[in-house]
């Protein structure tokens, strides 16, 4: 009974927040709307990373690689070859997923620190390509002038409000997809691997394959956020695929709470808001963000979502991840 009620609560909250996000477009000025768009885009990135970090127990330092591959594909196809919207989206989606599928072969057998290091190294390869393959990527100059998508006469994405709705629609779809993915038997098996891979193996699961698919799916969703990013900013450069970009996504997940889908989305919102809001008041905004990280890690090691907001139990996995830290996955 309690579970059913909790599910109902969650569903209500999800619908409520979605409605608020739709209404936001009518209330907010274009600047705040563009920040909110940014929050949604990075929310997708953070949620996709959470599939790996929070649910499969594989902390990745190279998640922006797929984000970057997708963004660069959109940029190159649209500015150099004049490919239309669907062509760009399809190409970027396929290519980023393909890169994830290839990288996955190299990383899926590792875990813990080794996983961290290999994903880091692979993302540096992507960065190196972005920086050095000047003929294709324009190197450090980046590629500018990516046109906003145009879906026929009626819906011009050049308009910030329309583009926001577009991103919001993608966001809601991605949220639901990831939610369903994680609730599926397959998603449950990922949690099993996080808790004890050897036990899962004994139960007859091919854990390598499950980890591999988890990596590819996470990369695929990361690619989707990369596509949106390229259209949002109209510009891509190697700094989009730097270590710091991966690290930022990592921190969004940690801040919000790994192993909760809402947490990373919230973490993305908080970090982007602070970056854009605080920096107007002080040059020392990095200190504020740093302090928040430290406080979070000291007092809320499972992220903001571990705060038990009255009546809302998002943190069902809290006890599980507690076991995880004490059980030792290394």
């Amino acid at each position, binding site marked *: 009974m309690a579970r059913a009620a909790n599910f109902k609560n969650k569903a209500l909250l999800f619908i409520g927040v979605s409605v608020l996000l739709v209404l936001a477009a009518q209330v907010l000025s274009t600047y705040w709307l563009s920040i909110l768009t940014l929050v949604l885009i990075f929310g997708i990135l953070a949620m996709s990373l959470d599939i790996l970090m929070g649910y499969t127990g594989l902390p990745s330092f190279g998640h922006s690689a797929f984000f970057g591959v997708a963004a660069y594909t959109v940029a190159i196809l649209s500015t150099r070859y004049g490919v239309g919207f669907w062509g760009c989206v399809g190409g970027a989606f396929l290519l980023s997923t393909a890169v994830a599928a290839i990288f996955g072969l190299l990383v899926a057998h590792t875990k813990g620190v080794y996983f961290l290091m290999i994903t880091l190294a692979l993302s540096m390869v992507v960065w190196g390509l972005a920086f050095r393959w000047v003929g294709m990527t324009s190197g450090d*100059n980046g590629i500018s002038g990516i046109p906003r998508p145009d879906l026929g006469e009626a819906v011009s994405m050049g308009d910030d409000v329309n583009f926001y709705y577009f991103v919001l629609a993608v966001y809601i779809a991605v949220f639901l997809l990831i939610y369903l993915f994680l609730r599926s038997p397959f998603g449950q098996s990922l949690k099993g691997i996080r808790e004890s891979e050897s036990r899962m193996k004994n139960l007859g699961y091919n854990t390598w394959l499950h980890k591999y698919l988890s990596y590819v799916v996470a990369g695929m969703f990361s690619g989707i956020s990369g596509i949106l990013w390229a259209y949002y900013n109209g510009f891509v*450069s190697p700094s989009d695929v730097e270590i710091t970009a991966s690290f930022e996504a990592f921190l969004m997940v940690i801040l919000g709470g790994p192993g909760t889908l809402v947490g990373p989305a919230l973490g993305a919102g908080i970090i982007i808001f602070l970056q854009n809001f605080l920096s107007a008041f002080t040059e020392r905004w990095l200190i504020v963000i740093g302090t928040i990280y430290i406080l979070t890690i000291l007092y809320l090691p499972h992220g903001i979502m571990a705060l038990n907001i009255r*009546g809302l139990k998002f943190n069902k996995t809290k006890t599980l991840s507690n076991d995880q830290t004490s059980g030792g996955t290394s």
Partner: protein
Amino acid sequence: MKKRLSYLFAALLVAMGFTVASGATSAQAAEPIKIGFFAPLTGFAAQTGKDMLAGLEFYLKQQGGKVAGRDIVLISEDTEAKPAVALTKVRKLVEKDGVHILIGGLMASTGYALQPYVDGKKIPTLYPVMAPDDITQRKRAKWIVRTGWSSSQPSHPFGEYAYKTLGLRKIVTLGFDYAFGWEVVGGFQKTFEEAGGKIVQKIWVPVGNRDYAPFLPQISKDADGVFALLFGAGALQFVKQFKEFGLKDRYTLLGGGTTTDEHVLPSMGDEALGIYTSLHYSAAIDTAVNKKFTVPYREFAGKSASYYSEALYTGGRWAIEAMTAIGGKVEDRDGFLKALQQQTLTDVPRGPLKISSYGNPIQNVYIRKVERVNGELQNTVVKTYPNVSQFWKYDPKEFLKQPVYARDYPPMMK
């Protein structure tokens, strides 16, 4: 019941957040003229960004903070030296703060990133520092006026000078591996080789690199000069290690202007003596106008003026004088842009300054040599090339037919 209440509470909170957020933006119909400044104020390039901000603040303070009866408000934003962040911050300056003019930027990539946005929003924009060649060459932007320089502009005369006056014949170049580095080195290579010299080797190091021990032994024994394009801590370290490796006595050391710019020069020692560089400014230019800037600036900022601070001092003045010329009517953007483009100033610290029809300054280029005067290192001007355009002696149309200077353009001579 409790649960219901908590929903209500949460919804209220969110709603409040939105109203606060939108309330803060609605008060835009204010009187003052707003200047939006953006530069790296944190991260590896923070020092140069702070020099820039200080230069602009210094000018506005001197000038009294008013133009044509309207107050001036300066809003500054930190770009972290990342183009994507710069774009977000510039959006904020334009869409939330409603600035009338944008001034700033450091990295070449930022310069390219902002161009479509600025042109789309039709915001008059000054680039006092960002120097990527193509902004005023092959990818000209309508709404951007450059009061700084294009990367290869000071290199063109310098290549000739190195061959004819310094008598160098074979040179090794070493530079930061990105657009700015390629363009400074490329311009030098073009004129040096056309004069009869030869670039025998090009070494590229990662941007911000601080240890040159792996690169110094690679330098060809065959050469008689080394041309280094660096800035910040990398420049400091390079000059030091160049001496320690015993190379200083073997080669003549040349460089792009930033290598010995005053943002790092005070931290260097005798190892920097005798380095030749070229730039459109030196804090040691011996004119009354320049001294009127450098002496009080040192009091204001607590350190010596650098090219970065001069760039924003002059850039700020460029903007304010254009505002005066149109009677403070900055809302007329076309008129404002025109005033920014057509202005000529003959008495800025660096020398006379006007903007070509391509949107790039025509200004003096100085060949400088590091010397110690009154106990302090300075970039003594040894030769002045007056009124140099970004195209040097070439015909603009012919010049633009060649590709922009890049990692492997001009190619190495066989």
